[in-house]
């Protein structure tokens, strides 16, 4: 008895239409803003809008998170971009750091 020929299925390797960018494969760096008792709330919100191009409401949300919870994760980026943002925030004298995810 002849065996019924099974359809040949190639393993699903390679050839995806979607290519992941190098950036998305790199370890993520979190840009964190920490609370301090000296920076004015409106000023912090203003800096967030300027550095990230956020709306006032989004900037205020993160500012309040810093104020109430001691810190806020502002964004997750590649190392290079996270460094850029931390530089910008620190130029404005905010207490910001980048932390490896």
């Amino acid at each position, binding site marked *: 008895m002849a065996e019924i020929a099974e359809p040949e299925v190639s393993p699903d390797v390679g050839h995806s239409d979607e290519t992941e960018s190098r950036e998305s494969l790199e370890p993520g760096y979190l840009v964190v803003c920490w609370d301090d008792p*000296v920076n004015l709330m409106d000023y912090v919100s203003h800096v967030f809008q300027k550095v990230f191009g956020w709306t006032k409401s989004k900037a205020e949300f993160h500012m309040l998170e810093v104020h109430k919870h001691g810190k806020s994760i502002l964004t997750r980026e590649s190392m290079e971009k996270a460094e850029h943002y931390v530089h910008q925030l620190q130029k404005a004298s905010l207490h910001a750091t*980048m932390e490896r995810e």
Partner: protein
Amino acid sequence: MRCIESAGDNFFFELSVKEHGWFTELIGRYPMVPVAHHSLSRAPSGDEYEADQALLEEALAEHRAQTRRQVQDMLEEKDRFQKTASGVRLRLESGEIDWLLEVLNDVRVGCWIRLGKPDTAAISTLEITSENAGLIWGMELCGFFQAALMAAREI
């Protein structure tokens, strides 16, 4: 200090003679925050960290030198501060408000650092002495001028 008029990108402020003196003195103190005050990470890791930290400090130092020149130019600019019958009139463009906010904040944070970085509760109960009076005064007045600039821009 209060904004009395805005036209397009220009904002006009009225300051009393005393406020003018305080304002110029405070921005003249820039920069006050030590470059080493900032660190790139709370949990440094990797061989590249020290190089990245050095790069951060270099970038901050360069930025401060440039901003310091802007402050100096503003203080030396003829007609920037115009005397009026009631005090002094100051014209600022919105971009200048942005870097002045940064300058005033640096002086405010710098005063706070020199006060020993007191927390919120400690700030309100600080005993004023001849040593710290200038720093407390500087910190509070910078906040006052920042608030006036932000109110003008409706920040």
